[in-house]
């Protein structure tokens, strides 16, 4: 048998093998194409057009981007979105790790604690916001104000203070999401060999030393991945400020995604500008993801 014939037979066999794989993937690919990629490209296309509701009227290049980025509310929303991300890292990044460690160290009823930690995540998002809006209500009937009144503190305002509103929203988001993230950390921590702890304990390492030298290095990669996922998620924050503060006071909690919603549905029906904001958000997140991937690869090559 000639070499060409062997090659042809091999590639035929590979095709037959690959075609089955492609067939299996086909439904997913079609769904991805129609429900992910097509809307994504349509959004980019729409951002380059003057629109009348969802119709494209005429091509205007980058005018939508220039117009959107030149406005104060965009700058405010951009800064707010970075502020959300910053506060989410301060308040919400390490909390799940600590939670996972505490639950992991529990000797009895670990399952109950795990369920309790995860419970807020099972509540519908809007219900959580409404719940917390009663807690932070500025009226005398607000739960926090009732609690404070027991120690003689007069009623305070919370969500109407520009400097407090973003941290409060992040506290609420963390309350809801930390338990779920903690479960992921717990799963990763469970994979750390107990012998390492025992050896460290025999060598006289304190709890903190064991955490620092054994536990954290074991979950470092996972922390990196969850960090970028958290940034991506918080960067798209929308319904929390939308329901709780409607972006106020004076745009102090307006996020980029909320600004996008306002352009599309807030009375102006400007889908072109809304798409421009969406593309800008995607671009920023893409850059962040690429930076993370770069460092991740670099770290892997060092390993």
């Amino acid at each position, binding site marked *: 048998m000639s070499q060409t014939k062997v090659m042809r037979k091999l590639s035929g066999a590979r095709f037959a093998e690959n075609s089955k794989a492609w067939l299996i993937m086909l439904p997913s690919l079609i769904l991805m194409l129609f429900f992910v990629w097509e809307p994504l490209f349509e959004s980019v296309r729409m951002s380059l057009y003057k629109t*009348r*509701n*969802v119709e494209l009227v005429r091509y205007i290049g980058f005018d939508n981007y220039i*117009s959107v980025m030149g*406005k*104060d*509310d965009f700058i405010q929303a951009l800064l707010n979105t970075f502020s959300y991300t910053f506060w989410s890292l301060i308040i919400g990044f390490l909390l799940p790790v600590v939670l996972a460690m505490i639950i992991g160290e529990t000797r009895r009823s670990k399952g109950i604690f795990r369920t309790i930690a995860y419970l807020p995540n099972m509540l519908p998002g809007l219900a959580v916001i409404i719940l917390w*809006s009663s807690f932070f*209500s*500025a*009226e*005398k*009937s607000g739960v926090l104000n009732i609690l404070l009144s027991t120690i003689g503190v007069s*009623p305070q*305002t919370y*969500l*109407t*203070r*520009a400097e407090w509103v973003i941290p409060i929203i992040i506290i609420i988001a963390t309350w809801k999401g930390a338990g779920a993230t903690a479960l992921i950390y717990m799963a990763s921590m469970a994979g750390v060999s107990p012998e390492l702890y025992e050896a460290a304990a025999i060598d006289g390492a304190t709890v903190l030393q064991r955490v620092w030298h054994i536990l954290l290095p074991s979950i470092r990669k996972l922390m990196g991945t969850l960090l970028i996922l958290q940034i991506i998620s918080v960067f798209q924050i929308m319904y929390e400020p939308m329901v*709780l*503060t*409607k*972006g*106020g*006071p*004076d*745009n102090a909690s307006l996020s980029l995604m909320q600004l996008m*919603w*306002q352009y*599309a*549905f*807030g*009375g*102006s*029906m*400007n889908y072109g500008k809304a798409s421009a904001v969406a593309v800008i958000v995607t671009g920023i997140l893409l850059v962040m993801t690429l930076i993370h991937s770069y460092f991740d690869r670099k770290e892997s090559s060092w390993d």
Partner: protein
Amino acid sequence: MNRFVKLVSLLLAAALLLSALPCTLAEEVIDADLNCTITLGNWPADTAPQAEKDLFLGYQATMAKQYPNVTLVPDYYSYTLSSYVPMAKGGTAPSIFQPPFTDPQLLISQHLVGDVTEALQNAGVLDKFSPSYVEMLAGDDGRIYGLPRDGYVLGLHINIDLFREAGLMTEEGLPMYPTTLQELAEYGQIIREKTGKAGLVFPASETYGGWLFTNIAWNFGCVGESALEYQDEDGRWVCNFTSPECIAAMEYMRDLRWKYDILNADATTSDWASSHTSLGTGEAAMNFGADDCVDQPTANKGLPVDSFALVPFPAGPAGRYALAGGTCYMFAPNITADQGTALMAYLKVLGKLPFLDDAIVAGMRADYAAKRDRGAPVLPAISAWNDEDYNAAKQAVIDEFCNVDMRLYNDFFDSISEGTITLKSEEPVFAQQLYRELTSVVQRMITREGADVEKALRKAEESFQEYLDDEINDY
């Protein structure tokens, strides 16, 4: 034999009755040839009060008799701009829906609603609704795209219990309500001091703050040459938030918070619904509200009707204006001529067209009876129709079911009928966007004590001007 005769007589009588029945039914059938399906938005949800659901089932039964080949598809859809656009573009919008008067011009300009000029003409009502409403519901092409459901005039909702607690009652036992914006601030201060509750609940989130502020601004003189937006000689739309009148109005807003301290503490997160809750549950004494939502603090939030009053919008230094608006019926962009006819028939059954017959009067009575049973004040309606007979008949039904002391409402209705208050419709173009810009300024004023009024208004003016240029001037 005798028994046999009786039986035959009975059978003959029954046969006579049965033969008469088709005649009766035939009389009720108005158009058996009309064959189409209409989807009806705003159908009461399963959770709605039973009386309301029964009312609509009655309408459905009447339609089935009069137009046996028209299929009614109930739809719980309640209009919002964001949900309507994709439905209209995707061909799934209900045949009829109910937007507020802020949106018709936007929907018409975007070709998102159906033309019902012919249907209105055929129904004989085109010349019966007041010209101002025609203006709101017609396109540049002169065609009509909707019809008014009801009108409202903005006034002041009063929680009488808090006025009584603050000692603001007349000798006749009526609330001593503010007739000017200055009195509003002063009375609000008294209420705050005496009761600890907010004098005025002011919803300042999203677009609500700007919406209410425009009415205050008009009373400070932001009309005519000082209007918040106007068209210049070249036909260009110009935003004018920095007139001395507008600045004075915004300074007044700032004073309500920092000088008089009469506002609810969480104004920037309050919306239309929560402001009614505040008034209804006794957290605030006054709320800028209209005559079409008197059921909100009462029936919906538990304030007894005798603890509630509706008074005219307080006058400002430059006059007394009150916003007149309302809700209208509009139609899906793809409705056919037959559907248009069927929809007019449906509206006629609902009693929303200016026609009178026993069934329509019965419908009106059922409507007001349901209102009274829910604990909502039954008040005179501000009619969008200029048909005198129709309006008089409606008023007679209202009088029959009236459940309030009209002394608590007379000043409001008299101010409209006697013309002591000037009714004004919403700002002419892109009102929602204008409200959004002004809401932002209002929020700044009530959250930052030293906020610079003129600077904030100038910023909002620039932003809205850019919007006007983009959307109209340079389109």
